């Protein structure tokens, strides 16, 4: 008898859950409608786009359909002919990047070239959007070299006259060599400054990316050519990846992205620089819209001192391979075993 009651109870629970599911779906649809925004072109985002699959699982026909949907929508929104590429990874290619920190002068042209190419949200006077920049250049101050002889025996815990010796030298308290923490907001009249060197950081396209591991919906993953990509239509905005990335490479669209029509770059790629939407994560993707067609990335092209090099790690004649072969190369935060494909080197 109790079993029958359990089954009855179970049935009513099942019904309840079913009703809850329907209510939930309705709530999601409502939230989706609210999130889509008031822009006319964006509001036309179809039911199909809301419920499309993760890009990797789409058939070729579905990808083509998604591409055309997006091209129509973007062309209308930005009033120019927009192409959305769906080129897959080129076979036999593993992208690598090398940055010569001996040469970098900290001019930040890479930062702004990237913004010109990749359709990030721009600054909005009303405070509803900030300019998203995928590259961050850090200024490492060389520190003061005004060593003075009389300070040689200063330190902690004792000072001059103490018998037991100093545990921590006086120069632990004044930056010497290089200051521990870099500066991000430097704006001198001219760069490079005599007492500083510069360290640009962007997504390192790790071979063992922490961001990919923590993504709960597998929206970010490493594509066969080594680039860690994001399917913007699949991202749920939980920002676990932003917590996990050791290089602070990922950015979030906190508000509705502000991208003026004149600034929009119409040659896009589905995984690359197509305009993103509110509530999703984005980051450097080695300019897929260019690199999968054989062209250098925007940051490579703009660097006025030629500090940035890019190419196919599997091609022994590529610039990157030659650099790995001849130069002193290191990886940032190598102890974390992320195996980044972004190498720093010196002449």
């Amino acid at each position, binding site marked *: 008898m*109790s079993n029958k*009651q*359990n089954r*009855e*109870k179970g049935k*009513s629970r099942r019904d309840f859950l079913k009703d809850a599911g329907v209510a939930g*779906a309705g709530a*999601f*649809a409502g*939230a*989706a409608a*609210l*999130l889509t*925004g008031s822009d006319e072109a964006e509001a036309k985002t179809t039911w199909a786009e*809301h419920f499309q699959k*993760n890009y990797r*699982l789409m058939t070729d026909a579905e990808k083509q359909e998604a591409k055309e949907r997006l091209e129509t929508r973007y062309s209308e929104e930005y009033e120019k002919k927009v192409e959305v590429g769906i080129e897959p990874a080129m076979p036999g290619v593993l992208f690598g990047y090398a940055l010569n920190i001996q040469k970098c002068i900290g001019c930040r042209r890479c930062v702004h070239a990237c913004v010109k190419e990749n359709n990030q949200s721009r600054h909005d006077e009303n*405070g*509803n*959007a*900030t300019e998203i920049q995928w590259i*961050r250049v*850090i200024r490492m101050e060389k520190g003061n070299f005004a060593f003075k002889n009389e300070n040689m025996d200063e330190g902690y815990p004792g000072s001059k006259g103490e018998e037991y010796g100093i545990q921590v030298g006086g120069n632990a308290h004044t930056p010497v060599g290089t200051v*521990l*923490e*870099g500066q991000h907001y430097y704006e001198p009249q001219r760069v490079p400054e005599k007492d500083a060197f510069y360290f640009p*950081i962007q997504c390192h396209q790790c071979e063992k990316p*922490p961001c990919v*591991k*923590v993504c*709960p*919906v*597998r*929206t970010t993953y490493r594509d066969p050519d080594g680039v860690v990509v994001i399917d913007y239509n*699949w*991202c*749920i*905005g*939980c*920002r*676990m990846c*932003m*917590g*996990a*990335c*050791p*290089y*602070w490479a*990922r*950015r*979030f*669209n*906190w*508000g*509705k992205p502000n991208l003026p029509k004149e600034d929009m770059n119409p040659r896009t790629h589905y995984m690359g620089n197509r305009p993103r939407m*509110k*509530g*999703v*994560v984005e980051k450097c993707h080695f300019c897929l819209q260019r690199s999968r067609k054989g062209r250098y990335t925007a940051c490579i092209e703009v660097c006025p001192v030629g500090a940035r090099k890019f190419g196919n790690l599997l091609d022994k004649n590529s610039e990157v391979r030659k650099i790995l072969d001849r130069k002193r190369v290191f990886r940032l935060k190598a102890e*974390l075993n992320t195996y980044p494909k972004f190498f720093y080197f010196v002449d």
Partner: protein
Amino acid sequence: MKQIRFGIDFLTYALKGGGKFYVWLLFLSFFIMLWVIGNITQITQGMIVTNLNDQVSWGLYMSNFVFLVGVAAAAVTIVFPAYVYNYKPLKDVVIIGEMLAISAVVMCILFVLSHMGRPDRLWHIVPGLGIMNWPNSMLTWDVAVLNGYLALNVICGFYYMYKKYTGEPMNKTFYMTFVYISIVWAFSIHTVTAFLLNTMPTRPMWFHSIVPIKFIVTAFSAGPAFIILSFFVIRKHTKLEIKDEAINMISTIITFCLGISLFLTLSEVVTELYPSTEHSFSLKYLMFGKHGLHGLVGWFWVSLVMNIMAFILLINPTTRKNYNILPFACVLLFAGIWIEKGMAFVLPGMIPSPIGEFVEYSPSWIEIGNSLGAWGVGLTVFTILARGAIGVQLGEVKYPSGN
């Protein structure tokens, strides 16, 4: 149908009360309204209405989430002695603990929805419909265990109450199996939440093996402290008898858990500050400020003082058993641990950023409104569920016999 009757009787009993009860509900409904308005604003305008940014990308919502998972886990401090040690005084009030667990998990879900950029894409994580990156992503483990815990408490709690309501005997095997599962599961929910944070070497403040231990002990002090407070309220305003031994057992548990938590704090401070590497910058920023920025320093010391004061009051049996002082100690403890888990753990993990940028954060009004609102929703759920449960326990909610 009996189940529907049960639901109706439960709710009608729960929603009937004296003047003070309606004032309380009205008070909570103000916060629920804040929650509704705040979330609509956040959904339409985007999370730009919060004070979160790319550097500090987890803030008030995650802090509350982490804290409330702990409160939810605290139901086990009643369930375990009651069923494993057959401690009679606690057996009658197990149901209150389970109702608290349900309300806390509901609050957790609300905070997760506020934290996500695209709650309309939540279906992406449902296996089958979307993709659930299990077992790689800790967040999927967290989603699984939290929903499982909610289900367990709903099953256990409502099965028990339904059987009491109808007067039928329980199927002990069925019920006890789920109880034992929920005991183990309670430990797992907060451990998994701890693993969510501590498996990221990017965040040196969190990248410790003491984090799961600290989370469990702070959960088992803050959660039961809230239960003790609700016991006092129940004693005052309902006819349900809660024996002193029940309260004393729980207050003993929270005392020792708080003691371990303080010891772990000491351990963390010594381990980080003795060699003082770059990895200790988050803790130094928290405790002393850095580079002229000291937004969290006050919060840290206040929470530490509150926890120590609570511990002193609790470790001394005279004050612990004095029911005029115990509620005060519980409030101190609850608030102290809330601050510690939020401002003194989740936030400093984000400051400085992984490449060394210090950015201060204080929540915006929308975030505060949404958080207070979610607490309002949770407290409303708890009030209703607890009242109904008390009614069932007292026998005032009973299936009319002869039907």
